[in-house]
């Protein structure tokens, strides 16, 4: 990706509700609710798949109507204590003075994003605390969730108006991508934009990210360029998870994502590890993130096949790796772990053959197999390269299979 000036999802973040594509009805309902001071329900719960405009709507409307949004992200700290600490000030008149309240702002709204991130024990009384806050609140409470069918959220449904968001339709996504192309001066084939939109499954955020990572200056974006999206389609949830993981804005967001995703942990952490330097180009951040990934890896090892209760430490560490510096995120295309290729090559049988070779060298030259591997094999290989039937092969008594192996040893 050549265009490094800024993140397009930031640049094209909706400033007015009209900027948000799709979900017209939801937008109307929300505005209606916000404007109605005497609404029966003090809180609203916006729910639907990621990247369709829930958070965008809250901010755009607040911007338009001059509300101050006090945000609290799910799972950052969900205990009753923590919620009260932050949210209480927003719910009493006197405390309202402490917030930036200029002549222009009409007031505050409390925004609780990702409420479905309330997990079991860690969030002792989280749900109940939220209900209490809604009840006591003097300002509108807005909540957002990806998946409101979770049992824990049932109590919440009683006190909020539910507004559903749908996947943004493909033609709408295409239309948005077209607009961005015009503004960014990118030439793109219609079919390419089509493909990006189809792949996004109605997640506008990821469509914009994909467009940014695939487009280059002075290059016409063709459908060929989007092939890479194709190969990712085979395992959609892995890719969604990876993308969401790397672009996560907080530990909570990353942690949430990992919990709800169905990906294979082992493959996931390997892919994360391989792509980490693409995410963090700053060595300080990279080393910090890698240390977390390394810890997560150790935890995964401890989980083994039975200690699943230890998995939460795995998630915690990985989530921390994602959120080392949310601001430094720029979209990138994922690389396939080279380690997979290497592991495929170094099968058990190959390792056995190499072991036998080293054993023979060790005996003849009075060294350990370790030294044979590191000090002798590379040199023998070099000599072999120069002379295929070098007499040392016979001296070592290598079998045909072993000779073949040495000849085929590649430089990677």
């Amino acid at each position: 990706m050549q265009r490094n000036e800024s993140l397009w999802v930031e640049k094209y973040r909706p400033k007015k509700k009209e900027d948000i594509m799709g979900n017209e009805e939801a937008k109307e309902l929300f505005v209606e609710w916000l404007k109605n001071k005497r609404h029966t329900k003090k809180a609203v719960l916006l729910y639907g798949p990621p990247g369709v405009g829930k958070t965008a709507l809250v901010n755009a409307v607040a911007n338009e109507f001059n509300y101050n949004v006090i945000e609290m992200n799910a799972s950052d700290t969900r205990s009753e204590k923590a919620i009260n600490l932050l949210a209480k000030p927003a719910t009493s008149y006197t405390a309202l003075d402490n917030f930036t309240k200029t002549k222009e702002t009409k007031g505050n709204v409390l925004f609780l994003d990702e409420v479905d991130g309330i997990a079991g024990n860690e969030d002792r009384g989280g749900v109940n605390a939220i209900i209490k806050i809604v009840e006591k609140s003097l300002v509108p409470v807005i909540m957002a969730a990806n998946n409101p069918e979770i049992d824990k959220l049932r109590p919440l449904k009683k006190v909020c108006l539910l507004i559903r968001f749908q996947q943004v339709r493909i033609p709408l996504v295409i239309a948005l991508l077209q607009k961005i192309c015009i503004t960014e001066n990118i030439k793109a084939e219609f079919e390419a934009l089509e493909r990006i939109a189809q792949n996004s499954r109605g997640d506008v955020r990821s469509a914009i990210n994909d467009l940014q990572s695939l487009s280059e200056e002075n290059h016409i974006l063709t459908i060929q360029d989007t092939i890479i999206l194709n190969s990712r389609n085979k395992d959609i949830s892995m890719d969604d998870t990876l993308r969401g993981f790397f672009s996560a804005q907080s530990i909570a967001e990353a942690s949430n994502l990992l919990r709800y995703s169905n990906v294979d942990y082992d493959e996931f952490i390997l892919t994360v590890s391989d792509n980490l330097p693409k995410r963090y180009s700053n060595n300080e951040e990279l080393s910090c993130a890698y240390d977390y990934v390394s810890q997560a890896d150790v935890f995964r090892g401890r989980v083994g096949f039975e200690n699943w209760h230890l998995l939460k430490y795995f998630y915690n560490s990985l989530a921390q790796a994602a959120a080392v510096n949310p601001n430094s995120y720029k979209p990138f295309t994922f690389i396939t772990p080279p380690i997979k290729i290497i592991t495929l090559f170094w099968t058990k049988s190959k390792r056995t053959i190499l072991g036998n070779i080293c054993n023979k060298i060790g005996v003849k030259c009075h060294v350990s197999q370790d030294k044979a591997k590191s000090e002798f094999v590379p040199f023998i290989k070099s000599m072999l390269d120069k002379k295929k039937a070098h007499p040392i092969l016979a001296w070592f008594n290598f079998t045909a299979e072993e000779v073949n192996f040495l000849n085929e040893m590649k430089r990677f």
Partner: protein
Amino acid sequence: MIVLNKNAFKLPRVEKEKFVNLLRLGLEYNRDKNVYLIKSYNNIEKLMDTISSILGVEVVFLQNCIRCGKDFPCKECNYKDLCATKNLPFSCVCPQCLRNMKPKQDTLVDF
């Protein structure tokens, strides 16, 4: 198959229980004009299924194009098989406007 107008469509008289259910699923009933309109879209799929079973036929809604303002049916669209909201009454972009790369000036929003 029958095409309904999301803002005003008629249904045959139904028993009280079914009527209450329709309202719960998101319909509003205008007594004066004797028409229904869709108030909430939260349960739109279930709603459509219920209406379908009442009318005994497949129910579809038209889509409204945000560019040209015209209504058009989903069957004209290339992406209907991939669409999560097919035949549901939401806004969209019609195939003609989509192909036209340069959108109309007044629909271009400022970024």
